[in-house]
């Protein structure tokens, strides 16, 4: 029998090793797998390279992971947001690396990795500092830069519902990077608000087919990052 369900966030993240490349879904708090990130903090893996659109808020979730000095390098499109304090401070002190990637290029580099495509050309960033050092090439008279794929060892993803095959559906704009991050990692680890029986998810409406998912854990009442930040909570508590 196939059963990708694990009992706890701790069990789900147990194999993440020092130095791993880890993708983390979410756009701001929407879709951020906060319980998996906290389990990763407890687990202790360090020297991580983290790929995520932002760098987290306050002192919970991704921001807490960074605050605990577990992250060597961030690959993201928008490292500062209204309540991001941890990353800016470390960055200014030269204590964390940053690779800044345009958001669409980031999504496509992740997808291409999952699709077995090692490189592609894009018009994004041509003529800007973010194209510096990148190969460029003309097609039909227009200039493009070549972008290499990004692959991760693990991805941590949040979704609305999952089954034991790892089929997933998401909630509204919390979908964002989840589907491509499941494609783009060796081991995709997912927290679902609900685990349902096989066949309960409409096969026409499954967004992430289970083939892209390795582990699923139910977190039925996930924390709301913005509330924790408003209360100035700090993980671990």
């Amino acid at each position, binding site marked *: 029998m196939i059963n990708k369900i694990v009992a706890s966030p701790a069990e789900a993240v147990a194999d993440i090793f020092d130095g791993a490349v880890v993708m983390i879904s979410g756009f701001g708090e929407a879709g951020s797998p906060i319980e998996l990130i906290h389990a990763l903090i407890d687990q202790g893996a360090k020297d991580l390279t983290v790929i995520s659109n932002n760098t987290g808020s306050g002192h919970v979730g991704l921001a807490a992971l960074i605050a605990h000095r577990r992250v060597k390098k961030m690959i993201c499109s928008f490292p500062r*947001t209204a309540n991001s304090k941890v990353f800016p401070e470390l960055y200014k002190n030269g204590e964390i690396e940053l690779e800044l990637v345009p958001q*669409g290029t980031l999504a*496509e580099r992740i997808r291409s990795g999952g699709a077995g495509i090692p490189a592609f050309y894009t*018009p994004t*960033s041509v003529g800007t500092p973010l194209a510096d050092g990148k190969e460029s090439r003309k097609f039909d008279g227009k200039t493009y830069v070549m972008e290499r794929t990004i692959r991760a060892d693990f991805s941590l993803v949040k979704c609305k519902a999952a089954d034991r095959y790892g089929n997933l559906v998401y909630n*509204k704009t*919390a979908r*964002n990077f989840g589907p491509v991050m499941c494609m783009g990692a060796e081991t995709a680890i997912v927290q679902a608000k609900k685990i349902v029986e096989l066949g309960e998810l409409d096969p026409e409406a499954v967004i992430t087919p289970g083939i892209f998912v390795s582990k699923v854990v139910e977190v039925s009442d996930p924390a709301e990052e913005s509330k924790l930040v408003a209360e100035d909570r700090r993980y671990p508590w």
Partner: protein
Amino acid sequence: MVSTEEKIGWSVSDMARNVAIDIPNGSYVNLGIGMPELVAGHVPEGREVIYHTENGLLGMGPAPAEGHEDPELINAGKKHVTAIPGASYFHHADSFTMIRGNHIDFCVLGAFQVSEEGDLANWSTGAPGAIPAVGGAMDLVAGDIKIYVISRHTTKEGVPKIVKQCTYPLTGKKVVDTIYTDLAIIDVMKEGLFVRELAPGVTFDYVQERTEAKLHLY
């Protein structure tokens, strides 16, 4: 540099309306964060315009009533929004397919600087020590989407934002189509910057004095 203390020219609301008038019925539009968001409130009667937010929603509606916010239904500025009937959700790679593949018709953006060739700088002031953050800005201007910039004509200090050459790091080269300021509507043409409309009571010379790049009349 010229003092801009006199209160003449269009209000921010007028500016947003000027942009909205130039967006035809049936358009797919991406609105940047800040002033561009106001454009949605000025769609002329009888037109239907569909808003795209790059974090995965086509058919973005207005802000929800208080108490009806959903932390998982937000826009690119991470504000709470709603979804209209006929909306759809999708992942980031599909969302940027809509952008990079030129399926979006118009993008309305703010700017730090626009050059006379239509170069745009709107993501970084290049200040030492600042945390660089680009988001989707470079993707939005990379295709052939019409790019409308909405911005005050000068900085608060009266420094021109429409310049010969951008001094801030570029978002994209030759990408801006039209600039909507409090003083004028300016089209970026191959031959230079052409003033299409002046705000009430504003003269061409008044605008030129507040613009580093050379302006033309049609």
